[in-house]
């Protein structure tokens, strides 16, 4: 699997580490309650097909990326900087 970083170009997936589903961008408020935190930390749609995840380009530019990927074919569909997705306001 290769990932095209918007800043560094096409790279071996070993340069990146994965954090998990992009759910992690929607961190609830500390007092949002059990259900919101359960959703954020534990519950997953777990799609067989297209998904969106957070990857970190540790061995490259050190940017956080949002990677759209297919979990059945391992095809990488689209990669954005998390900064651009959230307007710079990355909560995690």
């Amino acid at each position, binding site marked *: 699997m290769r990932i095209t970083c918007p800043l560094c170009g096409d790279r071996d997936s070993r340069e990146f580490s994965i954090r998990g589903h992009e759910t992690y961008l929607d961190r609830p408020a500390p007092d949002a309650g*059990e259900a919101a935190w359960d959703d954020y930390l534990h519950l997953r749609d777990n799609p067989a097909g297209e998904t969106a995840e957070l990857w970190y380009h540790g061995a490259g530019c050190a940017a956080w990326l949002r990677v759209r990927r297919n*979990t059945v*074919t391992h095809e990488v569909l689209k990669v954005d900087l998390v900064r651009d997705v959230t307007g710079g306001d990355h909560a995690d």
Partner: protein
Amino acid sequence: MRYSGLQVLAQGLMGNRGWKPVWRDPEPKPAYDIVIIGGGGHGLATAFYLAKEHGLGNIAVLEKGYLGGGNVGRNTTIVRANYNLPGNSEFYSHSLKLWEGLEADLNYNVMHSQRGVINLFHSDGQRDAYARRGNAMINQGDDAILLDREGCRRMLPYLDYDQTRFPIYGGLYHPRGGTARHDAVAWGYARAADRRGVDLIQQCEVTGIDIAGGKVTGVQTTRGAIRAAKVAIVVAGRSGQVAAMAGLRLPVESHILQAFVTEGLKPCIDHVVTYGMGHFYISQSDKGGLVFGGDLDFYASYAARGNLPMAEHVMEAGLTLMPMIGKARVLRSWGGIMDMTPDGSPIIDKTHVDGLYIDCGWCYGGFKAVPGSGFSFAHLIATDRHHEPAARFRLDRFRRGVLLDEEGTGSQHNLH
């Protein structure tokens, strides 16, 4: 047909022409008391114990592919009871006891081999952690022996004891741990369930779960609708999709785990050995192949095959630990889809729908759990009460914050 030594002899003399198909291939009936979705190890064991322990008869197991084609036939076959946490300890202890009587129970040779599992440690801190784990195992009534370096050397002379980066300090030896023939476990449970009247229906994919007034009424399948008073979901890596048919969102993410096997070699690795400083564990199958594996690829996947970086990492870790395997040629590698929970422990519970039960989240440790999970899940389905050794495997423990995090790595699906 009951299997016995006499049968083998008699059939041998008659040219082996008398063997019968091992289970029936029935058409699905319009209705059952209990429908089990998923013909893997856990689904088949659940059906068997429902029939054997609870005397229930009108049961179907629906399998979308063929029996044993999922993870039960893809794993590296380690069977052990070396857990630490209350909640896990008693469950795996119970499961290992069922393994020890399984072949007689099923009248089937599952090639259960208690060759011993040795977990190596490589620092003082790791030794302390394993000493503690060993004590927990002994408290649970199971067996554990802390080996020092010389003790390891006597049992595992082929390890690289001279490596300076991760020196071998010793190992935690679990003599009753070992391996079993994975396919035989699926086949043995399938045959035993069939003999007790369970309908095993293959090529039958469940596509919907029917619910009326908060109560389950049946399932939709590629072979038509089937009514059922109780429905049990036991579909491992596909848990997310099947649970979604009932509007249920699970604390599960599906990940890929790879495994590898070499060409057949003369016996050289007598135990199951795990490396404490890299993702690597190994045993030798009865055919002689070295069977080994490592960690998840870490990203969510339904591909049933992994990528090369983890393959390379596993080989590197193996060669660091036991350079002698470097000359063996790898014949095959494959992957299985693992139902990973955020704390690494499983779920055996009821759901918000009356009559709908779920057994999932076995991560990469569900083979050893096949007998225990089948037994405890059958108990829950038959009696509507949790079986004591599995009473902590609750669906809502994540929301309540009572995780069963055996490795202490935190609440993330790919860290266990």
